[in-house]
């Protein structure tokens, strides 16, 4: 199961590692066919084709690291009890290597090579293909749901197949036979949510840099062995598959989905991009928000650099400086109602200078109010250079558009706008997209709390920093074009 559940902690400190402008992760995240990210001994690990992998302290900055013996291609990792099971394939994968392959399993109690619990134990072969049959037993993916352990595998050469394993040993259940669940798909992943089993996998061409058309598709079923259908009712056994995510911007060819469940209504997913144009078009790890719409998974988006109204899902109120409202003139010629008696012309919007003339010089309180399209309600959001990040998203600075006046957390857990951005932790913000598409806004500074604090509308007009309640709209925010 490419499914990782992480408890959020305040201990996740970003490493200050340079990332290319616009990059979606920092460090050296070079990998192909990444496994589901697993947390072990306070670090995050993912393994790819070949022997090595990547390791990170925070999910943002990644370096080469980790040890995975056995070689082969496209591993997956799942933790059950105190064991990390690792599935990987030896053989297969193409014409040059043929299609004869074995999926093997091994386990270790730690992924940290420095841990005394580190050490792989071989379970053996759990699935295979003989090189002639319509299956190539590579790209294994785990799913642990309702106490049962499933493994999908296969590639474009024939069928994607499903087998059941013993979660206590990792061995194939006695007598279990493979079931065909899809065609023309590879790099599969499995999810279970609200009574549906989801089979994800890539369509398109891999391994060709910015010419790769890899994209991630999904079908769902009420049973783990199918039939899996897409949103049009087309069976995955007849080539169906609903799009989850394709290349966009400066990254091409997403593939090898892996769920990252951060809890509190926030899920992300790992993948590789076939080509990151900010990193010499090399294959890199990617992490993006995951949304759910009509019981379908859908790729989300980090908030992009830009100027926004930040709108509360609770009240619809706009986050704003608590300053005096400055009126705009209105045309009263011939009375307000009906057509004007003379010429008609465009009217300028209120300027920052007009709005800010009476703003105090020091910190200004922040509240929520009806959005009046005024400068004191418009925030420019940009990644804070060199400030690090967390699971696929950098820390942001949030300033009133056209100024350096920055949204900041206070020790007494309020929000204010300070006169100038300094890069202090109190002025750095995580903006995580939630599974419904809204965003959670979290200060980097812990403010003495053991659990992360989020921006919460405790009243229709009052934002503070408080514990995040995933069941409430009070801590959900939308970034609207101004």
């Amino acid at each position, binding site marked *: 199961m490419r499914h990782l559940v992480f408890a959020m902690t305040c201990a996740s400190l970003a490493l200050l590692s340079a990332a290319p402008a616009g990059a979606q992760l920092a460090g050296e995240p070079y990998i192909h066919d990444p496994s589901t990210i697993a947390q072990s001994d306070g670090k995050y690990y993912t393994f790819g084709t070949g022997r090595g992998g990547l390791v990170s302290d925070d999910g943002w900055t990644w370096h080469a690291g980790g040890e995975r013996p056995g070689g082969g291609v496209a591993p997956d990792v799942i933790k059950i009890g105190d064991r990390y099971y690792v599935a990987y394939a030896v053989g297969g994968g193409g014409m040059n290597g043929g299609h004869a392959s074995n999926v093997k399993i091994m386990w270790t109690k730690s992924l940290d090579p420095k841990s005394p619990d580190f050490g792989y134990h071989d379970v053996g072969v759990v*699935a295979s293909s003989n090189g002639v049959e319509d299956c190539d037993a590579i790209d294994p993916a785990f799913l642990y749901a309702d106490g049962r352990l499933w493994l999908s595998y296969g590639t474009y050469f024939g069928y994607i197949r499903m087998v059941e394993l013993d979660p206590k040993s990792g061995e194939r259940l006695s007598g279990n036979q493979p079931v065909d669940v899809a065609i023309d798909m590879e790099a599969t992943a499995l999810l279970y949510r609200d009574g549906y089993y989801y089979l994800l996998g890539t369509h398109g061409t891999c391994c060709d840099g910015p010419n790769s058309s890899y994209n991630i598709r999904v079908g769902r079923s009420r049973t783990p062995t199918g039939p899996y259908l897409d949103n049009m009712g087309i069976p995955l056994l007849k080539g169906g598959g609903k799009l989850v995510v394709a290349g966009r911007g400066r990254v091409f060819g997403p593939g090898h989905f892996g769920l990252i469940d951060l809890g509190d209504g926030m899920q992300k997913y790992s993948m590789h991009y076939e080509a990151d144009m900010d990193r010499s078009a090399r294959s890199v790890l990617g992490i993006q928000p995951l949304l759910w719409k009509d019981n379908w998974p859908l790729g989300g988006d980090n908030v992009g650099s830009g100027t926004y109204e930040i709108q509360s899902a609770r009240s619809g109120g706009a986050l704003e400086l608590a300053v005096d409202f400055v009126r705009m003139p209105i045309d009263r010629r011939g009375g307000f109602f009906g057509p004007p008696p003379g010429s008609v012309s465009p009217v300028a919007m209120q300027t920052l200078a007009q709005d800010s003339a009476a703003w105090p010089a020091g910190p200004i309180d922040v509240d929520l109010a009806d959005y009046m399209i005024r400068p004191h309600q418009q925030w420019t959001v940009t990644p804070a250079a060199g400030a690090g990040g967390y699971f696929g998203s950098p820390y942001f600075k949030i300033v009133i558009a056209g100024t350096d006046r920055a949204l900041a957390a206070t020790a007494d857990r309020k929000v204010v706008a300070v006169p100038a951005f300094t890069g202090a932790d109190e002025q750095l913000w995580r903006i995580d997209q939630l599974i419904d598409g809204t965003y959670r806004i979290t200060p980097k500074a812990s403010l003495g709390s053991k659990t992360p604090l989020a921006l919460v509308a405790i009243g229709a007009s009052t934002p503070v920093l408080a514990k995040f309640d995933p069941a409430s709209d009070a801590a959900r925010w939308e970034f609207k074009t101004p």
Partner: protein
Amino acid sequence: MSDLLLQVRAGAMAASLAALSVVGPSSAGAAVAGTTEAPSLAPYFSAIDATPKAPDADGFLQRWLLLEPIVKPNRSNTGFTGTYVREALTTQYFPSQFKGVPRDGQAVSAAGAPLRWHALDTTLFDVKLFNFAQSLSKPTYGVIFWAVTVVNSPREISNVRLAVGSNSASIWWVNGKEAAGLFGDRRMVMDDVVSAPLTLHKGKNIVRGAVINGPGLSDFCVRFIDEDGHPIRDIALDLR
């Protein structure tokens, strides 16, 4: 990981239509057993009989004349632009390529190689060209396949559409007129490309297609659908 690099299997060996090794499901603990023995056609194809064959429940056409593959090396499918595919699939490789209906067992000389037509019924909704070639010990990658079937309609049916999926690119003709083109590195999905409305004549209609693939598992699926997207099923296939 995917099939990207092409290593065309050199040397088409003697065709073997005899039932050879039927491959069962892979089993736990089984060692990798690479084999050079050609598998049987049986899992995916059967011999035709004299009875016209109706489409399956979803309307897919399951009786075809298939020509052994023409070798056309392509290292990657990303070059399957419309221009390339159209040039590759409209090149004259053998006489009567675009007219008439070949006979089962008929031999042609295409691109300098002797190739034979095979009349087959498919057991699945799709026509597994890769397995067809593999079972005949013919090249499986870097190839062009030609396929022909005859649709007998009990009446004239207007406003039907040809719905095609193919791996990889392909072009399809109905009664000699191009109906659908699938370009780019295609994977097969049912109803991938759907033609403009056309008319099935009362009696005989010839459907002809050509599929090109580099490093991929070639197959196609074809059906006719009506204005509402429902399959046309009151037709029958024979190969005469």
